[in-house]
């Protein structure tokens, strides 16, 4: 017998053949090929024979792949059919499984949409990466005070001195401006901008020429919406719009619709030079600023950090060293503006930390839904163990079984994903209203989003399916056919971990919800230090009342339902006020103190019911009370550093002297988020912007009628507007309320999903211990005893989940509360309450199944199997 001519390469070929040939035929065929190969080697040489061998492999490849695909498709068809049959066999179970996943996915989709929307702010701008806003850090004793507005001459200076600045623009915002065109009169917010705005931002004009539309003073461009409001469907270009019955603006263009992801909310754009008359004092001043913002477009390739370093020199040059020392200019990238929280800003912002929180919640919910799916699938597999055994007996390989289970979970994930997309379409309108964001959901035109959702679908299908697949396919056929499930407790401990995790998340969310509501309740009900409930505020606009409100006050103040009436430059809850520097002469030298000043009249303290702690109120009897006298709040008095401030002299700038005559108790002028600021009251009749009327709440309607009628007789040319101060204050907490509602929803969802999980697991445990229950009953166990036996494990898990969740919840909520200057301490009762809620819901879920198992006749359960 000759030795076979085996080489490494021929061995490889035979190895390949053994793998790809039909296992029943492989032996004979390999033998045959071996024989031919040997013969060829003898006749034509080893090289040729090996060539021939490889050639055999090569020519069989197309057929091989065809077969592979064909049979995989056949198998997939089979998997689908069996998946479908399994689904329809146990409709309740399938429904719970799909519903849990659908809700979870819909939630995640919505959160993704929201986050993507928030991140897409300003990204419609072509030069997004090169646009910066110049902002300012004002250096104080207690750290830098960052603010968005900058001085007016900055933009021209940047244009002049910085070659890397391609364009610079000033944009200014003025609110509550009375505008009229013919019959139409409204209060509007108006933006002013240099013509460069069109070179920096992508704001295409529908009508008009961007080069010239804003080049002259008193040119104005309207948005389509505004144009329609004033001029209907007619072409507005060339028409006139009156501002404050003083200035005539000529409409020179119409803006195309601005994407709502622009950080500025623009109704109309007027040329910046229109402000020149009004702002004469500030036009060249490097020291003062109001609502004016500077944006620049850097030339491509220039480094913003490098430019930032040159800004102090610019200030040195124009503003002088004194100012440059106190004010530090810096650049803020366009994409950061939406997430910034600068003072005196006028943009749509959102806190990035909430986006992170939402992402975390999305991941949580998805994991919860998947875990739930896994638990239910494993529970369900109890009934399917025979199927697996049968498949194994007729020759299914493990990989095939894994594929089968994965196909099934993908199938379910697909249904759930489709359902979730439908659900999102359904919820989206409410969602938009709720978040006040025009979140879009265009799957077809947004490939990134579609890919994201598809990826999510694959992740869910795989993550949810892989564990049951491996678990189920690992059984030996004997094991499977005898319905022996899982020996040992390792499997169970893995799933126990899931259940504990689910409950921990639920408990965490429940506690979070309660704490958020507690804080909101606290902020709403806390004594603000003044009458808030019965106060009506009338904005004075630009009417003559601003200079002299006395006629109005005198006309209404004798009405019995009006308990007080006052005018001031700012109102609590409206946030407007002027910060001023006061100079104190101290033995160590002059000391500067920033204090918010409210300019008011003689009735402010009485109308708001502020408590005077020291000194006296303003009084008509002292003529010097006008302008020269000040009342401080406690914080301001403390800031000044005096033990008894009454009677002390202060310098209110430009050499004007003032004197403190009283101190009032601190009151909440702003939201509870911020600490009470130092406030000074000063009488200055020319700066009044609001009128506050304290009324008897029983007669609110009557008083409102009176106020409106009086308004119409005294200043008929201005529309009558009013709001209740309490409403204004609750608007501060709108956002917190939303967060509270979201947490409430999520905790509801988490509890629901966890319950589904428990439901699946109890079904599994009772099924598994059917025989044990029968035995126990035969041996004399009571029904209660069996219920306790079945549920105690779950109760243990829920207790464990509580122990895990409590410290985390405490930590997280503590961090959240730190964002509020005035906050509640977390009520410890919430922790056991959350625990009780989860425990009782678990018990309710358990009881049905446990009782069914406990009441069953032992004969039945012993006969089982």
């Amino acid at each position, binding site marked *: 017998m000759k030795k*076979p001519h085996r080489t490494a390469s021929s061995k490889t070929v035979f190895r390949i053949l053994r793998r790809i040939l039909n296992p029943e035929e492989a032996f*004979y*065929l*390999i*033998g*045959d090929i071996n*024989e031919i190969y040997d013969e060829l080697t003898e006749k034509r040489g080893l090289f040729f024979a090996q060539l021939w061998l490889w050639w*055999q492999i090569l020519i*069989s490849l197309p057929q091989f792949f065809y077969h592979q695909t064909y049979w995989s498709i056949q198998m997939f068809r089979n998997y689908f059919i069996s998946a479908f049959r399994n689904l329809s066999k146990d409709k309740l179970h399938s429904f719970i499984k799909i519903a849990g996943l659908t809700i979870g996915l819909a939630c995640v989709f919505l959160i993704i949409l929201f986050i993507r929307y928030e991140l897409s702010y300003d990204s419609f701008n072509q030069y997004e990466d090169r646009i910066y806003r110049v902002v300012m850090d004002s250096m104080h004793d207690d750290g830098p005070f960052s603010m968005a507005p900058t001085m007016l001459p900055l933009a021209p200076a940047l244009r002049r001195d910085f070659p890397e600045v391609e364009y610079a623009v000033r944009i200014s915002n003025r609110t509550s401006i009375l505008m009229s065109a013919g019959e139409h009169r409204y209060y509007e917010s108006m933006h002013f901008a240099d013509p460069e705005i069109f070179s920096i931002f992508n704001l295409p004009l529908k009508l008009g020429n961007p080069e010239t539309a804003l080049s002259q003073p008193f040119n104005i461009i309207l948005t389509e919406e505004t144009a329609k409001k004033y001029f209907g469907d007619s072409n507005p270009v060339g028409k006139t719009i009156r501002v404050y019955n003083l200035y005539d603006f000529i409409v020179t263009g119409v803006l195309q619709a601005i994407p709502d992801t622009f950080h500025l909310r623009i109704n109309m754009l007027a040329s910046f030079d229109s402000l020149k008359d009004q702002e004469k004092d500030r036009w060249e001043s490097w020291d003062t600023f109001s609502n004016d913002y500077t944006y620049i477009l850097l030339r491509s390739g220039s480094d913003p950090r490098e430019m930032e370093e040159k800004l102090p020199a610019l200030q040195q040059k124009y503003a002088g060293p004194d100012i440059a020392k106190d004010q530090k200019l810096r650049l803020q990238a366009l994409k950061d503006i939406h997430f910034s929280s600068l003072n005196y800003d006028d943009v749509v912002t959102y806190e990035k930390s909430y986006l992170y929180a939402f992402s975390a919640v999305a991941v949580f919910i998805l994991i919860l839904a998947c875990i739930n799916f896994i638990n239910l699938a494993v529970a369900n597999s109890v009934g399917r163990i025979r199927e697996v055994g049968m498949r194994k007996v007729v020759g299914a390989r493990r990989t095939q079984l894994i594929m089968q289970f994965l196909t099934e979970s993908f199938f379910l994930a697909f249904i759930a994903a489709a359902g979730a997309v439908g659900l999102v379409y359904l919820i989206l309108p409410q969602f938009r209203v709720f978040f006040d964001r025009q979140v879009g959901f265009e799957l077809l035109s947004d490939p990134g989003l579609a890919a994201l959702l598809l990826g999510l679908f694959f992740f869910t299908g795989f993550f949810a399916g892989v564990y049951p697949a491996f678990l189920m396919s690992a059984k030996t056929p004997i094991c499977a056919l005898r319905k022996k499930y899982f020996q040992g407790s390792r499997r169970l401990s893995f799933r126990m971990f899931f259940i504990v995790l689910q409950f921990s998340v639920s408990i965490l969310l429940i506690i979070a919800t309660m704490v958020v509501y507690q804080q909101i309740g606290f902020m709403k009900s806390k004594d603000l230090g003044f009458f808030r409930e019965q106060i009506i505020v009338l904005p004075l606009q630009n009417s003559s009342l601003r200079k002299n409100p006395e006629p109005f006050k005198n006309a209404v103040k004798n009405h019995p339902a009006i308990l007080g009436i006052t005018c001031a430059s700012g109102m609590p809850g409206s946030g407007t006020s002027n910060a001023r520097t006061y100079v104190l002469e101290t033995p160590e030298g002059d000391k500067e103190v920033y204090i918010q000043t409210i300019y008011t009249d003689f009735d402010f303290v009485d109308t708001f019911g502020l408590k005077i702690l020291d000194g006296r109120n303003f009084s008509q009897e002292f003529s010097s009370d006008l302008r020269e006298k000040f009342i401080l709040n406690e914080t301001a008095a403390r800031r000044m550093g005096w033990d008894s401030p009454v009677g002390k002299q202060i310098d209110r700038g430009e050499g004007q002297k003032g004197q403190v005559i009283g101190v009032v108790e601190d009151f909440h002028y702003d939201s509870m988020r911020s600490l009470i600021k130092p406030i000074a009251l000063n009488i200055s009749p020319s700066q009044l912007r609001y009128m506050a009327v304290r009324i008897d709440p029983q007669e609110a309607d009557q008083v409102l009628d009176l106020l409106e009628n009086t308004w119409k007789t005294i200043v008929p040319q201005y529309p009558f507007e009013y709001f209740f101060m309490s409403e204004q204050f609750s608007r501060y907490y709108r956002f917190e309320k939303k967060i509270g509602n979201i947490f409430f929803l999520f905790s509801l969802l988490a509890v629901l999903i966890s319950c589904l999980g428990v439901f699946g697991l109890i079904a599994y445990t009772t099924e598994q211990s059917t025989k044990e229950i029968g035995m126990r009953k035969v041996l004399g166990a009571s029904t209660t005893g069996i219920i306790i036996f079945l549920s105690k494990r779950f109760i243990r898990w829920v207790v464990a989940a509580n122990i895990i969740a409590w410290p985390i919840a405490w930590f997280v909520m503590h961090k959240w509360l730190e964002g509020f200057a005035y906050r509640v301490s977390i009520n410890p009762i919430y922790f056991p309450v959350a625990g009780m809620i989860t425990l009782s819901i678990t018990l309710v879920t358990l009881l049905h199944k446990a009782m069914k198992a406990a009441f069953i006749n032992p004969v039945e359960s012993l006969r089982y199997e």
Partner: protein
Amino acid sequence: MKLLTRQEELILLAVYHLKENAYLVTIRKFLKMQTKHPWSVGAVYVPLERLRRKGYLETYIGGPKARRGRNEIKYYKLTSTGLELLAERKKINDILWAQFSEMNYKV
């Protein structure tokens, strides 16, 4: 009658001629020799299996020969239907081929 392809017919005839020694390698060698055509392994194996499925051939396993490693041989053998089919084919072929001569036809 059952139609057979020319290949199938040739393969059946090869099995017939090879008697007890009909398996993939010998059948292929036989065909190559008789037809002077390079038959690939697949060109023999696939019709063989097809004929077996149709019931014209049956198989039996024989002990391994040298040069085959330890692999056994799958021998092919005509079934009675297979034999009947061949007989039928011969009859038809004889009729159709009778009086065939290149001279009788003008090209």
